[in-house]
């Protein structure tokens, strides 16, 4: 029987390829996700390992989440420790080092290098002191020489290439305090082991870096090189007693594992996020595989009956089909893993295009990847094959051999279950916003269950929907081709529904995301309108902080009535964890923003006072008068709550006045300046004046209200495109399903097509009929998906209303585009089966038994 199964498998190469392809695509998504995150992990691990000195002496605050360390004053350690540490036994040398984020390298046009790459921290560079000891420096000079003296710097090779500079050329750098300084490029550097992040690195010699960014006797950290054979922990323990408060010693291993942990949680999230999309693809692929096997079994009913008639048992028939499925699954999964490597490369490109500074790296295949991918391919294929196989094995041999059509089992049970799920889902969906009003997470959970119920219910009911829907759609087509095509879609409603169902899932998710994005855009615009009273908003590119001098320049501009700066410092606080505290001038900010303050007043905000948004205050049970202890870069600080305010868009969390934020560790840098013009001057004049004032600061952008809204809208759009790119694969698999269904249908209808040709239908007519059939299936799937998807989007908006997505909006143009693309995709999917059908030899078709 196994031989019969294998022979059968290879006898139908076409079916094999089509079914296999769907497994390959689904497995590729899963394998690709793992390969991508494993590769990222591996390359980051290499960087972490090579970057660690034996022991590092650093400020205690360095364990703040790295997301927030860019803001605030540079934490330092005293360099007076260096000779003391070098005197210890087992220490070869101790080298002070300086690292400064937020350097801007200007290109020949005077614009920040890499600014066009937008997204995450685009346009800024990291500056450091050049470590002359190779054992402590993972970077080497590949061209020119290391920087020496106050007028030289070195640059990483990728950035030098982008700038088009060679050693000896002049480079202009914008320092964090707003100074513009020219340096001579001494050399070009590369990280050992190649791959670095897509980030610009600038190096000065230690004395120059200290002079530029810190004061004498200060460094960012001290790297300690131990004698060979010494134990890291012993050196650390020997150093620790020497250190003042606020400074700690950590071993390279500790440092590495700490960074590693932070990476793990980040990558874990990324992995889960990608796997969700992989599961969507798998679900769609399962549809396709199930559908294909159902059709194969239906076509082979007579063949299987013959096997039964000559004495094969039910078990043998069943096992024969399963054997086919297993062989197919194994081969396709193996190919899927190979394709996954290509998919991982694609993901790398996608993330880089989205502006994520991930290093491009070689691909890593963990055994886990292969095991999971194989299992996924195998289980899905076997389960999808099992149901039709069971059906095939219960067919009485005589019944099957007598007539070609075997009545499919009645769908009453399926319809009942579908109706139940749909009804239950809608019921939960109605409840969900009410639950969410109390607890967003619970509401989201209820909504998720409701969405799953509705989607599965609709898919179960869709054979019933298929009949009226295809009748309605076929009204678009007149003539015999349309009549034949629509008749074909109704011939087996279950098959039509299953084929369309795969597309339904993809379009549903895309529509839901589209609605959510449109609602978010509209809500954010609404918040901007409601909250921001300022006429202009100044932000750094990539939302990087910019020099405090910008605020002063703005204030000095004619026609500016008020400039409200927003300054930030990292801290660890109850209710928010690692976060950024915001410092404002309490009087001026109230001119720029319309804040609702139910408790207390911003006017009371003084030294060591804090205003807290209502959500955070509620979550920690704080109110006006409570005292909150927070951990700042400078150590623990007690703050007294004087106001509780309604969160307004991005303006949330802990808010202090400017002197307090400086005490909490903020540098003389701002993240936003809100500008209010006086009534006497026209907006154009003020804008022109501001543009002139901001000329020395190419790393900031001046936005009026509408441009500000557009910027936020663009960012949401960018995220949207990224999600769509991930969903495209699910849609592609669904379209492949249409190819598959049609190709097999054409095969089933060989005689019918022959008859049509005999009585005078042209090849073109045959093609047209099949293309229309595909169009009807695709449009049916897409329309159902869109209706359900828009409903999901509306539900999500309701759930998240409390989180700021207050308004419902639909991007009708985008939704229409989805429908058009789905229909076009359906038509494209039909081209090949249609071509095949039109090339069938008439006589062969009529003579087919």
């Amino acid at each position, binding site marked *: 029987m196994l031989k019969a199964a294998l022979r059968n498998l290879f006898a139908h190469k076409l079916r094999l390829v089509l079914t296999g392809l769907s497994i390959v695509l689904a497995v590729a998504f899963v394998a690709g996700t793992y390969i991508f995150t494993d590769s990222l992990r591996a390359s980051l691990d290499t960087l972490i390992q090579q970057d660690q000195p034996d022991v590092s002496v650093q400020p205690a605050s360095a364990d703040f989440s790295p997301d927030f360390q860019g803001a605030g004053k540079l934490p330092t350690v005293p360099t007076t420790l260096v000779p003391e540490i070098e005197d210890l036994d087992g220490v070869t040398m101790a080298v002070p080092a300086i690292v400064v984020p937020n350097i801007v390298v200007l290109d020949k046009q005077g614009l920040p290098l890499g600014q066009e790459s937008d997204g995450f921290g685009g346009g800024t560079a990291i500056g450091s002191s050049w470590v002359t000891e190779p054992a402590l420096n993972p970077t080497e000079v590949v061209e020119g020489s290391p920087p020496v003296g106050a007028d030289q710097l070195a640059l990483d090779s990728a950035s030098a290439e982008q700038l088009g500079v060679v050693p000896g050329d002049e480079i202009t750098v914008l320092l964090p305090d707003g100074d513009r300084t020219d340096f001579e490029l001494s050399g070009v550097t590369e990280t050992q082991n190649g791959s670095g992040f897509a980030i610009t690195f600038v190096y000065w010699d230690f004395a120059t870096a200290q002079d530029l960014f810190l004061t004498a006797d200060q460094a960012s950290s001290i790297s300690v090189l131990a004698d060979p054979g010494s134990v890291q922990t012993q050196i650390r323990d020997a150093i620790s007693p020497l250190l003042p408060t606020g400074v700690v010693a950590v071993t390279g291993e500790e440092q590495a594992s700490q960074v590693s942990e932070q990476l793990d949680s980040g990558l874990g999230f990324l992995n889960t996020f990608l796997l969700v999309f992989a599961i969507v693809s798998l679900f769609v692929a399962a549809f396709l595989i199930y559908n294909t096997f159902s059709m194969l079994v239906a076509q082979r009913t007579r063949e299987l009956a013959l096997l039964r008639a000559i004495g094969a048992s039910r078990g043998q028939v069943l096992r024969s089909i399963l054997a086919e499925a297993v062989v197919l699954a194994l081969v396709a999964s193996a190919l899927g893993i190979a394709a996954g490597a290509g998919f991982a490369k694609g993901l790398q490109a996608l993330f880089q295009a989205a502006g994520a500074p991930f290093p491009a790296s070689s691909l890593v295949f963990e055994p886990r990847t292969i095991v999971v991918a194989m299992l996924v391919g195998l289980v899905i294929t076997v389960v999808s094959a099992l149901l039709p196989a069971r059906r095939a094995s219960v067919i009485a041999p005589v019944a099957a051999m007598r007539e070609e059509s075997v009545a499919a089992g009645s769908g009453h049970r399926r319809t009942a279950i579908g109706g139940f799920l749909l009804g239950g889902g809608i019921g939960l969906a109605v409840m969900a916003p009410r639950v969410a009003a109390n607890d967003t997470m619970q509401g989201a959970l209820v909504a998720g269950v409701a969405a799953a119920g509705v989607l599965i219910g609709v898919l179960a009911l869709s054979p019933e929907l298929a009949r009226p829907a295809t009748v309605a759609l076929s009204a678009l087509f007149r003539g015999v081709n349309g*009549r*034949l095509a629509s*008749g074909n879609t*109704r011939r087996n409603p279950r098959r039509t529904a299953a084929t369309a169902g795969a597309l339904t899932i993809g379009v549903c998710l895309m529509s839901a995301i589209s609605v959510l994005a449109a609602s978010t855009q509209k809500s954010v615009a609404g918040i901007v309108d409601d909250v921001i009273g300022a006429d202009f908003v100044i932000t750094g590119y990539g939302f990087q902080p910019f020099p405090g001098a910008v605020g002063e320049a703005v204030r000095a501009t004619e026609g500016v009535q008020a400039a409200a700066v927003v300054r930030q410092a990292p801290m660890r606080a109850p209710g928010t964890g690692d976060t950024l505290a915001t410092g404002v001038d309490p009087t001026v900010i109230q001119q720029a923003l319309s804040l609702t303050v139910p408790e207390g007043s911003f006017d009371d905000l003084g030294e060591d006072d804090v205003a807290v948004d209502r959500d955070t205050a509620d979550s920690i049970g704080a109110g006006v008068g409570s005292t909150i202890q927070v951990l700042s870069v400078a150590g623990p600080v007690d703050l007294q709550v004087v106001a509780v305010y309604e969160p307004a868009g991005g303006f949330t969390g802990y808010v202090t006045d400017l002197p307090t934020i400086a005490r909490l560790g903020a540098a003389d840098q701002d993240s936003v300046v809100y500008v209010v013009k006086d009534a006497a001057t026209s907006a154009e004049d003020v804008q022109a004046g501001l543009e002139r004032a901001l000329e020395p600061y190419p790393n900031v952008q001046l936005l009026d209200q509408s441009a500000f809204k557009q910027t936020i809208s663009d960012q949401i759009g960018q995220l949207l495109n990224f999600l769509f790119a991930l969903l495209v694969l699910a849609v592609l698999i669904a379209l492949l399903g249409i190819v598959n269904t049609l190709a097999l249908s054409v095969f089933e209808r060989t*005689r019918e097509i022959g008859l*049509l040709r005999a*009585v005078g239908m042209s090849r073109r007519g045959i093609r047209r009929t099949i293309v229309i059939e595909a169009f009807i299936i695709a449009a049916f799937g897409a329309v159902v998906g869109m209706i359900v998807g828009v409903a999901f989007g509306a539900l999500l908006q309701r759930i998240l209303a409390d989180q700021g997505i207050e308004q419902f909006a639909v991007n009708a143009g985008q939704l229409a585009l989805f429908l058009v693309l789905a229909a076009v995709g359906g038509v494209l999917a039909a081209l090949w089966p249609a071509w095949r059908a039109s090339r069938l030899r008439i006589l062969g078709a009529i003579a087919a038994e």
Partner: protein
Amino acid sequence: MTSQPAARALGLSKVYGEGEAQVLALDNVDIDIERGRFTAIMGPSGSGKSTLMHCLAGLDSVTSGTVMIGDVDLTTLKDKALTALRRDQVGFVFQSFNLIPTLTALENITLPMDIAGTKPDQQWLDTIIDTVGLRSRLSHKPSELSGGQQQRVACARALASRPAIIFADEPTGNLDSRSGAEVLGFLRRSVDEFGQTIVMVTHDPNAASYSQRVVFLADGRISDEMSDPTPERVLDRMKRFDIEGLSAPTPA
């Protein structure tokens, strides 16, 4: 009866396969199909009778020779012209699977005209429908019709566009004798009453007796001919094939 035949084959040969597996299905066949007459083509299995019909109807390519329908040489036509010719000039009735399962009986009858995008002649359509006795079943799908009814729908379809010639390939092969008689009677009436030209391939002497002329085929050649056949005479002639085996002598 005009002098020009409805269809004609001259020196028609058809070879299947290549090399050692080569089979000569038709061997230099000359035949005229007279206009307005009911011609039956008979012969044992493998005699080439179906191949002859397929070649005459433009369903199969020929190896050599010419095939004419009216004054058009089919062997010079490309697929597109051939398709149009089949649609407009030729009607077909096959042994089984004559109807499109998704279309109603009426839609099946008007299918060739729907494909051509022409309006059926309503009066003629009514005449045919009444002749085949299907008026009450027009909105039924093929699966709701009996085998005999299905073949009558197929006959009605073949006649509906008033083709120059109808080819019927074992039209009663799958029917019980009563249904078969109904279909054959109807074909004969369409010749007698409407002047339709029909060519029927069959191996059933009883079916052949409904025709006006029987052409016997053996080994890819025309071996004999008979006018105004009766079942007995046809059966007699067929028996001689059995006795002579497949190597029946060909008349000069």
